[in-house]
């Protein structure tokens, strides 16, 4: 069964520079899908191709089965919320929102009805007669959203929409967007470089690097089971050690790690070939530090207090570093800089990576 939005072998190059290389993606109806990656990874180019502002060099884009690759932007059933909002400065808020409906040649009463509807939903009713220059950043953003939503597009594309907002407003708005999306039952595709944002709003995330999609999955899938060191390091933080000889004992692998200076344990899996180079990744929040016991030995080198957590950086005997994190439960830290510690974690917390 074909996906709602289907991207097939899509590529885009400008002269010799290749911005997007052979992407295949299927996005389902009702998803809040994120394209996540650093700047220059091609995510904006991909979004613009879906919107119709760039023509692919090769490949196809299908919407509900129909090939829209050659359909110009103004005829596509997609709408975009621009990073700079792109509100028409010479039109009032009301006229901005009405703009797209006027292109559809709806009659006046219908236009009026829809504007009032969306204005109420986004709390813009009092601002309809103002001009964009008189609005705050958050208000402008809602107008940009209203203008796109009022056309009831099949897909709403959001290009780094929250970058200009300050932190508190951003979090609020992220939750607002999720609520709206579920209420309206629309499909959203968002481009962002902020992994917290992607994790907060998405049903699924596609992580991109240098024009290619590295991994696609739900937030917990990509976080808990990354398939490469790049993905593991891009989302949150992680410790990575090269893995060596492994011995199996029931369901647990005991892996010799020269880098870590000891044995680490991982759950047995046959998905990784252990005779080829591989790595072990463990997230700092799963690492437990104790003053005695079995574990990787090291000395606490740095201690950072962020309010919510305490971050420990441990210098191991081999010279490598290990990061650990503990949620702040209100008590003072029982570890200090210079203390000798032993680090350990449950085997399920280890993730084996082939690349």
């Amino acid at each position, binding site marked *: 069964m074909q996906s709602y939005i289907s991207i097939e072998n899509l590529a885009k190059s400008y002269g010799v520079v290749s911005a997007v290389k052979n992407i295949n993606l299927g996005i389902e109806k009702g998803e809040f899908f994120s394209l996540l990656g650093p700047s220059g990874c091609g995510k904006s180019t991909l979004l613009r191709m879906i919107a119709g502002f760039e023509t692919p060099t090769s490949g196809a884009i299908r919407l509900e089965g129909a090939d829209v690759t050659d359909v*110009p932007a103004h005829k596509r059933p997609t709408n*975009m919320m621009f990073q700079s909002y792109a509100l*028409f400065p010479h039109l009032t808020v009301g006229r901005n929102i009405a*703009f797209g409906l006027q292109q559809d040649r709806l009659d006046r009463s219908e236009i009026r009805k829809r504007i009032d509807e969306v204005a109420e939903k986004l709390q813009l009713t009092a601002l309809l007669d103002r001009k964009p220059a008189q609005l705050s950043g958050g208000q402008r953003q809602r107008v940009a959203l209203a203008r796109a939503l009022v056309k009831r597009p099949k897909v709403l594309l959001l290009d780094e929409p929250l970058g200009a907002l300050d932190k508190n407003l951003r979090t609020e708005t992220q939750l607002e967007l999720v609520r709206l999306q579920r209420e309206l039952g629309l499909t959203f595709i968002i481009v962002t470089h902020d992994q917290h944002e992607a994790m907060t709003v998405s049903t699924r995330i596609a992580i991109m690097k240098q024009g290619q999609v590295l991994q696609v999955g739900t937030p917990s899938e990509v976080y808990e089971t990354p398939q490469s060191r790049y993905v593991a390091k891009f989302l949150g933080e992680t410790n990575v050690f090269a893995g060596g000889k492994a011995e199996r004992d029931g369901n647990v692998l005991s892996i010799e790690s020269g880098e870590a200076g000891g044995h680490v344990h991982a759950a047995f899996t046959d998905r990784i070939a252990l005779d080829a180079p591989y790595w072990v990744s463990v997230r700092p929040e799963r690492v437990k530090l104790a003053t005695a016991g079995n574990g990787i030995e090291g000395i606490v080198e740095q201690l950072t207090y962020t309010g919510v957590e305490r971050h420990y950086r441990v210098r191991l005997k081999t010279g490598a570093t290990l990061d650990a994190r503990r949620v702040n439960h209100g008590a003072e830290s029982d570890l200090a800089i210079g203390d000798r510690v032993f680090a350990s974690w449950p085997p399920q917390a280890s993730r084996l990576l082939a690349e």
Partner: protein
Amino acid sequence: MTKPSWFNRLSILFGLAFLYLPIVVLVVYSFNGSKLVTVWGGFSTQWYATVLNNPSIVEGAKVSFLVAAVSATAATILGTLAAVVMVRLRRFRGRALFNGMLLAPMVMPEVVMAVSMLLMFVTLGIDRGPLTITLAHTTFTLCFATVVLQSRLVELDSSLEEAARDLGCPPARAFVSVALPNMIPAIVSAWLLSFTLSLDDLVISSFTTGPGASTLPMKIYSQIKFGVTPEINAISTIILGVVVLGLVGAQLVSRRSEKAERTA
């Protein structure tokens, strides 16, 4: 560079004085009752009367204004198209040549352009007269208009037009309803600039004109060759007045439209 030093103030003063002195002299002496520059014969507007009653001068002025208005309009339209092509379209074959042709007239000596365009008209068999002057003026003012329009278009956020297209506008309509309104001051500037350059042109007009069609600068030039007369001061002051009024008017209009946008 927070406050201008005495050296800076002096430079500005000296520079501006140098620029305006001859103009002031001209205006003052256009009201001089005596023919001689060295003698002040009392305040008089007789030269203005002479000028305005001179059919040759008036005819020349009519031709000049007509040619200037038409060529300025054509140059502004072509310049807008050229600016859109250069700024919005990323790459196309022959872009470098197009760019070169757009910029070259700005530095080309007038005689060179005049000679070449005249030869083209002769070859094409077009009768020389006000039409050829207009074609020639459009061509040489085109580059100035394009520079003004291009600078403004580059400043405009292209995402506004993209938003319009995203909302259902075909590309041409998106440009006209979103970008053009924001370009009005630049369009007015481009038009005025082309108008003034055309009005003032002597060399290109002389080469590309035909029998019976003389522009105002051509008439003034032939009078100057006969000898300096006070009527020329009067004509000059009139033209100066018209231009200054036009400039000030344009500035006021653009200031007012900016204000209106901000406070509505």
